[in-house]
């Protein structure tokens, strides 16, 4: 007995519900009584027998003859059981289509012969591709309306095949149907007598289940930790691969590790658990593990990084722009992420990418997301739950997504079992000896805004007052620590991450660290803040573009204008002005000495104020 879950897609009037209604009647699942009821119900509304009424249970649906929300229909034959998810074709109800389609084995796309591929069909096909379906069935319906059904079918078949090929979707079969008459649904009929291929039911039976990846790398998704009789059980599900008793598991992203001593599937204790199994495991040591963690073998770790490139479908009623921070739910983990950039939006008409300023409801897009926290994700496993995610805005699900790439840090191999040491000198002891606390003062602004100049001037002033101070200059670091990095968005993010990590160490050592980096993206600056959250100060060195370009200390603006420098901030790459900087100096109207003096005052207030000392 084969059990299959199928989703029906197609434009509003293509006849999805009619096909399902007809299927129910023709496999003999509808009683005489129900059929009579259907006749009277149809007659009451002045229409010929309407098979879709079997599905469209809601009053309002019967009256408007459309399907409002995802419904399920069970069809049972001798050798197969089907659950059909009837998804609405209505434009505003795409979230319902996605809700229905995300759990099935295969889709059936219904195209009305008299309409062909409509804009709505295009959009739905794009969603199917986004959901990762490669294998679909296509039913060309309403052939009863065509003058020459066979010719009409051939024409539509070619049109559909060409369109789907653009999306890399190869249909399992494209077949003719006249659902109202029942032709080629369960049995072939007079209208489709020329058709030698399968009926819809035969083609459905030939589909395969989408199985979990038994062969993939082990992924154990932690849902919770339960305590029973003094023992601790880590509860979760094996997402892929196979978990064995005795396995040494590393839990990401914290990289804690322990050996599995017992696998419980209450009331049984088992030796191993396969993909899809819910289990509770005991470990040989009391390492920190909590909801959100992903367990793997150390040699087969997920990708780790702060930056994700992802393909998303935006469902939010309100659009989104780069810079917005949302909550990411990936597996059982939930963390804030910022949309660093909207890379491209797919145009459903042409299936070509185009650039866009914002994500609108129904858009399929490629975006770059960045998080302060380290993210563990997979890109290779199509079906794994640590590839798929959702985005949440104020408690509402606004997007679904799939991770295409994890950027910002290499695989975590070799970094397992690292334990941070506790320092033998405490921060407040350093502050007391130095007479001031440490802190990171992050100067951001356009090229030639005067960041380095102001930083150097302030450094001199602080040094002369006996403060421990050091300037980390972006350009200087690019000749040493960051010599391997270029100016792509990913490399800029990594440049910021490393610089911030070094700044954090200096600040911890009691130094006043002044960083001068263009750091054009808000999301990257947020990442920098995360490296030293309690003593980080974002200082905006404000300067209008015209003034900066006039100064052009290094001649870069001129070269960028000539097209010689790609990714040059202010010219060929954007600069995101800080929305809520901790302090602003304005070098358009102030001289360097004035800016430096103001900044000096601000810095001293921060590091000398006892409340800001990190105790």
């Amino acid at each position, binding site marked *: *007995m*084969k*059990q299959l879950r199928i989703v029906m897609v197609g434009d509003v009037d293509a006849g999805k519900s009619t096909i399902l209604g007809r299927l129910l009647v023709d496999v*003999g*699942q*509808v*009683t005489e009584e129900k059929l009579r009821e259907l006749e009277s*119900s149809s007659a009451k509304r002045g229409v010929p027998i309407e098979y879709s009424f079997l*599905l469209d*249970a*809601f*009053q309002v649906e019967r009256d408007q003859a459309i399907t*409002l*929300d*995802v*419904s*399920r*229909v*069970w069809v*049972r034959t001798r050798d197969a059981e089907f*659950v059909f998810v009837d998804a609405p074709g209505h434009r505003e109800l795409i*979230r*319902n289509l*996605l*809700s229905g389609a*995300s*759990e099935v084995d295969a889709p059936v796309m219904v195209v009305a012969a008299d309409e062909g591929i409509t804009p709505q069909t295009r959009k739905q096909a794009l969603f199917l591709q986004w959901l990762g379906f490669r294998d679909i069935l296509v039913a060309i319906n309403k052939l009863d309306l065509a003058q020459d059904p066979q010719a009409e079918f051939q024409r539509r078949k070619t049109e559909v095949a060409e369109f789907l090929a653009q999306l890399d979707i190869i249909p399992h079969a494209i077949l003719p149907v006249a659902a109202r008459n029942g032709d080629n649904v369960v049995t072939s009929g007079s209208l489709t007598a020329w058709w030698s291929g399968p009926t819809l039911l035969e083609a459905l039976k030939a589909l395969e289940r989408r199985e979990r990846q038994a062969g993939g790398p082990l992924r154990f998704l932690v*849902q*919770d930790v*339960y305590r*029973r009789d003094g023992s601790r*059980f880590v*509860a*979760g*599900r094996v997402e892929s691969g196979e978990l064995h008793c005795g396995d040494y598991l590393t839990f990401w992203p914290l990289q804690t590790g322990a050996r599995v001593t017992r696998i*419980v*599937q*209450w*009331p049984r204790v088992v030796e191993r658990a396969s993909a*899809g*199994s*819910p289990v*509770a495991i005991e470990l040989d040591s009391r390492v920190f593990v909590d*909801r959100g963690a992903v367990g793997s073998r150390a040699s087969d770790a997920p990708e780790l990084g702060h930056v994700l490139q992802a393909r998303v479908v935006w*469902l939010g009623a309100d659009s989104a722009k780069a810079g917005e921070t949302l909550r990411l*739910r990936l597996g*059982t983990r939930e963390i804030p992420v910022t949309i660093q950039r909207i890379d491209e939006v797919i145009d459903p008409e042409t299936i070509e990418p185009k650039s866009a300023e914002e994500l609108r409801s129904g858009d399929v897009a490629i975006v770059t997301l960045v998080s302060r926290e380290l993210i563990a994700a997979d890109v290779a496993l199509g079906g794994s*739950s640590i590839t*798929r*995610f*959702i985005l*949440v805005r*104020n*408690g*509402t*699900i606004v997007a*679904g997504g799939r991770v295409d790439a994890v950027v910002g840090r290499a695989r975590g191999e070799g970094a397992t079992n690292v334990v941070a040491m506790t320092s033998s000198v405490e921060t407040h002891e350093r502050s007391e000896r130095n007479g001031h606390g440490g802190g990171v003062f992050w100067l951001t602004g356009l090229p030639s805004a005067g960041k380095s100049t102001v930083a150097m001037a302030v450094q001199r002033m602080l040094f002369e007052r006996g403060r421990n101070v050091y300037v980390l200059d972006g350009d200087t670091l690019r000749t040493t620590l960051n010599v391997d990095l270029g100016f792509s968005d990913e490399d800029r993010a990594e440049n910021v991450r490393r610089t911030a990590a070094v700044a954090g160490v200096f600040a911890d050592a009691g130094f006043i660290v002044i960083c001068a980096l263009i750091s054009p993206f808000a999301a990257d600056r947020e990442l920098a803040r995360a490296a030293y959250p309690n003593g980080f100060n974002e200082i905006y060195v404000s300067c209008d573009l015209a003034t900066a370009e006039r100064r052009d200390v290094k001649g870069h603006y001129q070269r960028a204008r000539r097209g010689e420098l790609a990714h040059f901030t202010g010219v060929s790459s954007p600069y995101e002005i800080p929305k809520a900087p901790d302090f602003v100096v304005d070098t358009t109207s102030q001289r360097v000495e004035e800016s430096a003096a103001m900044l000096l005052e601000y810095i001293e207030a921060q590091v000398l104020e006892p409340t800001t000392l990190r105790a």
Partner: protein
Amino acid sequence: MRSVTSKLSDRRADSLNGMATTLDAYLDELEARTIYILREAYSCVNPLAMLWSIGKDSTALLWMVRKAFLGDVPFPVVLLDTGMEFPEVYAFRDWLVDEWNLPVEAELCPPESTVDQTLPPASRHAARKTAGLRALIEREKYRGIILGIRRDEQAIRAKERIFSPRNGDGSWDPRMQPPELWEYFPYDIPDGAHVRIHPLLHWTELDIWRYTLREKIPYVPLYLAKNGKRYRSLGESNITFPIDSNADTVERIISELEVTRQPERAGRAMDNESEDAFERLRTSGYM
């Protein structure tokens, strides 16, 4: 000759084993999904309670709750009592509460005179449970209520989501349901509202009986045929009627269901009073 026979019977045994394996794998998959949902609910929604109607579905669900939480039932199991259940149902309840050590709480439902009088008579009676549930949620401030409904029971229930957010009065707006992508359920519940959690939504009646048989889960004996009649769905004694059946074992119930064309809730008066009776009950907060 002998070898041919044994080969044939081997092949038959193989194919039978094959069928059993796919069915087992299928039931395992349904169960795994339910356990995942239960654990998600317990981790992310608090306070939480489960309704137990004492029927086959919510009893199978209780069994899976025990599987999810290592034998425990870590939240209250609530009985919405109208005082009108069959005596066999009450007897079974008392026995299982003891047997499984269930943390039960009984909620007495308000009388019929307090519910919407424009509903047809049997629906009016069923609406007592809606009122009882509303009172319970208001008093205990539950944010999540776990229910054993299934999509194949009834066309209106087929439209449900696994996590179904409700307004303060428990009402359901099927047109404003949030998206439910993969297994990401909406946990953010505004103050005063709650979420109905439906971990059995993807099961069918047949699945439940196959699972009940495999797992040896106890059930109310009224489901088995006696003198040519059995109850296929159990509700209060005054609005539930038995169907014609000779299925006096679970195996026979399964065989019966594999071929039946009768809807499961044919014996439930409230579903069949008028075209929209059940929709009206559900949108106003019925289970």
